[in-house]
């Protein structure tokens, strides 16, 4: 305990020292050399307002620049939607995912899952404020030397403690949304991603090991993958980075969120080994009612996740909302239909699993595909994930407790690939900016190849990193609780509480 306190004190001291150093830098900076543009005329002020309606920048560009009266002012409509979306995405983890997973475990482990989700919420927020936001979204994009590895790994030094983050928009990412709102919105993604991993390792990983593993994993995997895909100079940011070496697209996190967490889940569950008694014992979910409630919350929250990822209340957000609804509804219909046709009964868990699989697959696609494309994605993910979870898992015999791999990795990969097939210019005008030659509105358009490359890079980062980090964690604190604790249940042994006392 003393050691932890000492470390915390050191971190805090270093943080404040660096903050004051930065402030000094700012005051000593030389004044800008370029002459200030002229004050805006009434016509130009009207143009600025029209730009707001279309989610575009103010103040003109090139030779006709003017000093906009609303430059640096967040746009109320766009900001309001992102504030709402941010809360919705938090709602996905607390309580959505926590209840979804909580219902699927056995009674004796329900609190351990809830505790892990809450732990991750606090832990990731702290990492995010100190370095995480800066590592993904910090830096101007122009000064690539700020990165640890150009376009791949941002530096923990950029945006230390979010000191440069204010209510003014950061036009690298949004013309109208306050940067602090944007930072909180993105934080919620960073929270739910490691929380998804909990599904694979449920009921059999030490709480301490989860703290250690997730902390390291956020730096090595999430902040890096996030920077590559969403950072302004990221090497896989095909939509906004003209110099991206892989011109891939990922609207709301198919690779960053679902593939990273899903494949990490698989590797971890292989390294951890099966739960004691698996697969002979009774591992039936203790409350599908909780799972059902959690699923509903996930779906509602996912509108913030997907539609909010337009970072504006604009036409792209409207399309993302539509495609998210369609793909999810279709998959939630197809999965229990497979249950019914192949196993004889449509199951409640099938409805819930289908909905989540649909949400996962449409995540990278929602802002780029048309409603027609989203129907096909919904059908495909419903059938393919059903087979992964119901047939392939038992054939191979790994113990992916709550199917993080079968739903998130498989659905995320499928979504990333199908985004390459069904992204259409009519769905998102931004595709024409840097991807004119990639998005040709055909199923086998060149974008598909770029998406496959992005899938490959993601796997090449996630799999080795997870193996190494898991063994480091094992060396430091051990991975599994004792047999006695695992059989008694993690709730009492690790948290000293019971979920149901009556």
């Amino acid at each position, binding site marked *: 305990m003393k050691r932890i306190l000492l470390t915390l004190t050191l971190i805090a001291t270093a943080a404040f020292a660096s903050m004051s150093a930065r402030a000094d830098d700012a005051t000593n900076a030389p004044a800008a050399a370029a002459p200030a543009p002229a004050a805006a005329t009434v016509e130009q002020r009207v143009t600025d307002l029209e730009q707001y309606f279309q989610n575009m920048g103010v103040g003109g560009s090139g030779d006709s620049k003017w000093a906009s009266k609303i430059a640096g002012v967040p746009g109320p409509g766009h900001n309001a939607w992102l504030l709402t979306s941010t809360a919705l995405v938090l709602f996905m983890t607390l309580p959505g995912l926590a209840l979804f997973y909580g219902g699927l475990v056995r009674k004796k482990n329900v609190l351990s899952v809830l505790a892990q989700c809450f732990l991750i919420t606090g832990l990731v927020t702290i990492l995010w404020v100190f370095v995480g936001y800066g590592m993904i979204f910090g830096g101007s994009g122009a000064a690539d030397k700020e990165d640890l590895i150009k376009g791949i790994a941002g530096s923990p030094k950029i945006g230390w403690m979010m000191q440069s983050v204010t209510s003014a928009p950061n036009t690298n990412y949004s013309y109208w949304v306050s940067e602090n709102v944007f930072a909180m919105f993105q934080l919620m993604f960073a929270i739910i991603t490691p929380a998804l991993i909990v599904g694979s390792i449920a009921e059999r990983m030490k709480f301490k090991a989860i703290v250690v593993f997730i902390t390291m994993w956020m730096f090595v995997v999430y902040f890096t993958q996030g920077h590559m895909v969403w950072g302004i100079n990221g090497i896989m940011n095909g939509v906004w980075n003209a110099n991206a070496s892989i011109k891939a697209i990922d609207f709301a996190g198919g690779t960053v969120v679902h593939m990273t967490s899903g494949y990490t889940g698989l590797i971890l569950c292989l390294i951890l080994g099966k739960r004691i008694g698996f*697969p002979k014992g009774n*591992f039936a979910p203790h409350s599908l009612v909780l799972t059902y409630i959690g699923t509903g919350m996930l779906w509602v929250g996912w509108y913030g996740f997907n539609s909010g990822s337009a970072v504006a209340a604009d036409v792209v957000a409207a399309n993302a909302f539509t495609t998210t609804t369609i793909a999810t509804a279709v998959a939630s219909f197809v999965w229990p239909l497979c249950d019914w046709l192949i196993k004889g009964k449509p199951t409640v868990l099938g409805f819930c*699993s289908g909905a989540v699989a649909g949400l996962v697959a449409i995540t990278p696609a929602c802002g780029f595909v048309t409603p027609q494309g989203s129907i096909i994605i919904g059908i495909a993910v419903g059938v393919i994930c059903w087979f992964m979870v*119901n047939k392939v898992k038992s054939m191979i015999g790994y113990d992916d407790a709550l199917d993080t791999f079968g739903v998130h990795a498989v659905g995320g990969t499928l979504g990333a690939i199908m985004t390459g097939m069904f992204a259409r210019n009519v769905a998102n005008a931004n595709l024409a900016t840097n991807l004119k030659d990639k998005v040709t509105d055909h199923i086998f358009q060149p974008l598909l190849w770029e998406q496959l490359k992005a899938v490959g890079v993601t796997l090449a980062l996630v799999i080795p990193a997870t193996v190494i980090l898991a063994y480091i964690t094992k060396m430091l604190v051990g991975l599994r609780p004792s047999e006695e604790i695992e059989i008694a249940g993690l709730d009492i042994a690790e948290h000293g509480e019971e979920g149901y006392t009556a």
Partner: protein
Amino acid sequence: MKKIEAIIKPFKLEEVKDALSEIGIEGMTVTEVKGFGRQKGHTEIYRGSEYTVDFLPKIKLELVVADTQTDACVAAIIKSAKTGKIGDGKVFVSSVEQAVRIRTEEKGESAV
């Protein structure tokens, strides 16, 4: 005095209770129990994992009655609890040596 123990399907409890009340039975003890007989359990499937549930929920009814009432009671239980399908349950009858009403300390048949 005889003790009647009946294992019945849970949804039949109301009917059995009413049938016993009709023939003048004034008290009984009911417990929720689990078990299996020839009906066996059933299989549940969660995402491809199959679990056999051996023990099914049943209701156990216990009542102690005077010797003269025994046959009528058993008949009433059988008539009201029967569905004709497997899993309807069983009735057991055994002798009881003594009964005491705690409040009044009455003994024997007047206590039941």
